């Protein structure tokens, strides 16, 4: 039972790293970017290619996954996302679904449609037992990395000047601009950071969620659930939402396997009905 809880936490942690970038960009620019998962996929494939083709160790490929996705984020933000900010949510949804389609088909064309597999270093394989609770090394590693990231993000968001400027911009972009905070530049940086984190999440998630060209479509709904349930104005909201989702999903399948994915969708609908602004959102201004 505790083992399952542990598994759920690891799953939720990866979901958080994957989705947190989306939540901040959504809160900051009110921009719905369904193509977020494409950056995650990019990170995943960078890892796979580096490990398979260049023989790089797993650990070394993780930063590369982050950098590649972040770079792609910067470039795409500059080139194609900018004109979309002023458009309606519906247009943004259409536009980013288009990008997802292109990413899915493009990846398939370049790298084939099969599931990608990586070989973890030996020290990350297997598991050990503490008081009868089985703990997988890799899941522990994931929890460690994502936990550190979550703490670092929370610290960066709460304690640095960048973070306070970002929060100011999310609170009230109009006044923030009037007081000299360069909202657009902040956004570009955040977008890059969020994309990079998605890339890292994609790399870490290969083992837990698999990786194939349909990844951005398969997990789009999960990301959206994390963001809408967690709200878009904090780091803790999406974090708790991701944990809730991860644990509920894994526990649900364990306890009532026949109900399958039903549980998380029902949970989402109920939560959104109770708290339309997100579970942990502050009151609107």
């Amino acid at each position, binding site marked *: 039972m505790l083992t399952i809880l542990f598994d759920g936490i690891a799953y939720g942690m990866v979901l958080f790293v994957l989705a947190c970038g989306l939540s901040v960009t959504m809160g900051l620019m009110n921009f719905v970017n369904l193509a977020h998962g494409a950056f995650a996929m990019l990170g995943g494939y960078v890892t796979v290619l580096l490990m398979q083709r260049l023989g790089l160790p797993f650990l070394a490929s993780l930063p590369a996954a982050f950098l590649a996705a972040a770079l792609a984020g910067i470039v795409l933000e500059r080139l194609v996302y900018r004109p979309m900010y002023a458009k309606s949510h519906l247009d943004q949804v259409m536009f980013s679904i288009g990008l997802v389609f292109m990413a899915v088909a493009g990846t398939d064309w370049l790298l084939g449609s099969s599931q990608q597999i990586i070989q973890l270093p030996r020290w990350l394989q297997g598991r050990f037992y503490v008081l009868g609770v089985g703990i997988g090394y890799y899941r522990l590693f994931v929890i460690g990395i994502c936990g550190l990231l979550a703490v670092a993000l929370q610290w960066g968001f709460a304690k640095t000047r960048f973070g*306070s400027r970002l929060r*100011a911009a999310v*609170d009230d972009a109009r*006044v*923030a*601009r*009037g*007081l*000299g*905070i360069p909202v657009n530049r902040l956004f570009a940086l955040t977008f890059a950071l969020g994309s990079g984190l998605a890339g890292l999440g994609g790399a870490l998630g290969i083992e837990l969620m698999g990786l194939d060209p349909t990844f951005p479509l398969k997990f789009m709904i999960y990301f959206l659930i994390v963001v809408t349930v967690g709200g878009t104005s904090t780091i803790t909201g999406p974090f708790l939402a991701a944990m809730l989702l991860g644990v509920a999903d894994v526990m649900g399948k364990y306890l009532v396997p026949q109900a399958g994915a039903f549980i998380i969708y029902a949970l989402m609908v109920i939560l959104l009905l109770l708290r339309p602004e997100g579970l942990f959102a502050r009151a609107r201004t």
Partner: protein
Amino acid sequence: MSELLRIEGLSAGYGDALVLFDVALSLDEGRSLALLGRNGVGKTTLVNTIIGVTRRRAGRITFADADISTATPEQRAHAGIGWVPQERNIFKSLTVVENLTAVARPGPWTTERVFRMFPRLAERKSNLGNQLSGGEQQMLAIGRALMLNPRLLLLDEPTEGLAPIIVEELLAALKTLFRDEGLAAIVIEQHARTILELTDTAIVLERGRVVLADDSAALLREPARLERHLGLSAAA
């Protein structure tokens, strides 16, 4: 004294609605201007247009010899305009200190100096913006604008809705800023007489137009002129 701000032929509004018509004014370095008028005549719109968050339809705004008519709000802020918006708009998820540091630009104004000016704020350093009282929020909004080390301060109804004792404290602070620091400022105020005592000049807006412009002292001497534009008598 050199001219700091010059506005010519300015028309502006929000969306389709046009609020300001052909407004012109000029302000020299170190001088303060009271912006008077009844509710809804366009005072806030004028201030918001100077900082650049409305829809400008026509006219020119020159600040420190540069045309900023089409500049973004960020650029105007960096050029040296400090804005205290009408609703104060404290960043509610930032602490008092963060509200100050988030916008800070180099110059003589620092958090310490703001806290010296408003000791109440110093006591609430680590409170979040939305945990402050109205008066504290107003002090923070002013302090926040000062952290940009501006050459021109825009104050939109700094005393609105505040208790008399707080109003006095604020007015004292403004007096220091205007008189001792020599900071140029435009102040919107409903209570005309109070503010005229602090400012050098004043203009009165009516239905989006400047209908009166004179020295503050001159207006104070002739209350009838004021009352005609601000009081409850028919203007025409």
